């Protein structure tokens, strides 16, 4: 009995030791892969003396789960619009002290006060873009104007789709003429059926790996975020045979944001970091490095006009108008997950 008591005591002590590991002056950042110029992290460390602990993940859903954990260690995170909406609803975000973020003035007004966070109480826009079709001009000669082309048997085995519930089901809903935020189960089931029919034509459901496969010329058509398309169609780093189009039926426009979880105990350093990222010079370097569009007007002014002329990087107003923004679906997310299980297995 004594031995068991001793054992339990040791376990408790060990758990407490793990729990108390000091955080002191370290900023814990959770980001998407390839989504910051890591040189900037070093610069931030140099300038402020704050250590950065940098981790990446591959999906919004994964990020959400990590932030929902009661003892989440992260101080900075980059979720998309609908996840910010959910995090606010669940009261998991720290209300920003805007006095610490004077560089907020650099952000273009178009990107402030968006429906998922009115007044930007909890989030600062980081990058934005659309979802569209990236195609290889040597394999696709017809104009790409509709999502229908992803269901064209001519391209069987040469199509890549995103391994992402909301993106993939969302574009199918648009193709069927429904909203990407539908809460009608019959719409989701119809999309599910369409994606099951498409499955034999799809070579693979991937994440970031789509970029490598398309640049290597292994696919004719793929779904990508506009920022990745900027990078992939680049003449030096990518493959000049690739082009990007946002279908005429419409698409998704998305905003990735910087947030601080409520559980963070280092909010001042986190706000310093947000301010740092909103600096015009820093934002310029960052957007040029990752290729995603910045909402930072001051940064755009510093950039080569070539960037603004690039319609993938800077979509014209008519493209933006036909795009819809994702909203949090609440409990209805389970219906989407269930449909997803029947599509990807």
């Amino acid at each position: 009995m004594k031995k068991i008591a001793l054992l339990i005591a040791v376990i408790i002590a060990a758990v407490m030791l793990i729990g108390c590991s000091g955080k002191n002056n370290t900023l814990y950042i959770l980001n998407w892969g390839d989504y910051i110029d890591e040189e900037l992290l070093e610069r931030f460390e140099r300038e402020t003396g704050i250590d950065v602990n940098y981790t990446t993940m591959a999906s919004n859903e994964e990020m959400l789960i990590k932030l929902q954990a009661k003892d989440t260690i992260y101080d900075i995170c980059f979720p998309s619009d609908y996840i910010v909406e959910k995090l606010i609803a669940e009261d998991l975000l720290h209300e920003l002290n805007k006095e610490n973020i004077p560089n907020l003035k650099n952000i273009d007004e178009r990107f402030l006060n968006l429906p998922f966070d009115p007044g930007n109480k909890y989030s600062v826009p980081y990058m934005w873009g659309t979802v569209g079709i990236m195609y290889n001009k040597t394999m696709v000669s017809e104009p790409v104007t509709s999502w229908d082309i992803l269901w064209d048997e001519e391209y069987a085995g040469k199509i890549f789709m995103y391994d992402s519930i909301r993106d993939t089901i969302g574009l199918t809903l648009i193709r069927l003429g429904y909203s990407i935020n539908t809460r009608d189960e019959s719409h989701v089931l119809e999309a599910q059926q369409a994606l099951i029919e498409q499955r034999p034509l799809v070579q693979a459901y991937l994440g970031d790996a789509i970029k490598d496969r398309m640049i290597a010329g292994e696919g004719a058509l793929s779904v990508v975020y506009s920022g990745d398309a900027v990078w992939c169609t680049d003449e030096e780093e990518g493959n000049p045979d690739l082009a990007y189009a946002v279908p005429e039926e419409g698409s998704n426009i998305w905003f990735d944001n910087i947030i601080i979880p409520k559980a963070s105990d280092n909010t001042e350093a986190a706000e310093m970091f947000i301010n740092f990222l909103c600096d015009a010079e820093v934002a310029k370097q960052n957007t040029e490095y990752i290729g995603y569009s910045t909402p930072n007007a001051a940064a755009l002014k510093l950039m080569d006009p070539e960037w603004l002329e690039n319609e993938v990087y800077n979509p014209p107003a008519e493209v933006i108008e036909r795009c819809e923004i994702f909203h949090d679906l609440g409990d209805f997310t389970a219906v989407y997950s269930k449909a997803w299980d029947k599509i990807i297995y």
Partner: protein
Amino acid sequence: MKRTLFSYPYILWMALFILAPMLFIVYHAFFENGRWTMEYIKAAFEDAVYFKVLLRSIMLAFEGTLLCLLLGYPTAYMLSTMKKSTAALLSVFFILPMWMNFLLRTYAWQVLLGSSGIISRILSFFGFSDVLLLHTEGAVLLGTVYNFLPFMILPIYTVLIKLDKSHIEAANDLGADGITTFFKVVFPLSMPGVISGITMVFIPAITTFAISRLLGGGKYRLYGDLIEQKIVSDGDLGLGSVLSLILLVLVLISIVIMQKAEKTAGSEGGTLW
């Protein structure tokens, strides 16, 4: 059974990192917010898709283990007949890749098998163009065999080199030819190695998940992938836990079967066949 002081760190380790997580899984599978629920169990058996994925995992583990055995046994046998120094050098070649992380090695297969990769190019040189190698079920099987083959070769090799040569000499003296000697003497005596090889391949193969994701392109999900998806991206801890338990039970059953087989092989020596 008197435990020595030295066993305490091990017991602590087991309690903290094996027993406690297992209890958490059982808890999440049957309780929601502290209340008993059978909902997750129902959900796990209700959907035919989950069963299909489980079946695929079992099939793949079987095929992978069989292929590893067919490739691994002859290799181990050849190694065991070689000069000690040559065998030692060659076995380094089998172990060497294991010094590298298996994800890295699997990524390398992505490059090799991709339709712009070297294998496709060689095939198209011989007139087989447009053969899809990556993102197929075959690629997943290849990845499984490649990653787990050393775990088949090494235990068999270890048993074979310890084999008492006088048994073989006796068989030869009594007029058995090479093939008869092998099937009547060598193979039965090496059964303990074969069985531990099978265990060491089958169990990781049935629980694997990264290989199918990297080489199967999301089209050939395994049970491990399903569990990962439920917990990491759907946040459905309950269903994920039930699926984990189902896999756990399967693994336990296969371990029991293997141990039974090992006992028979061990106690009765060469008389299994």
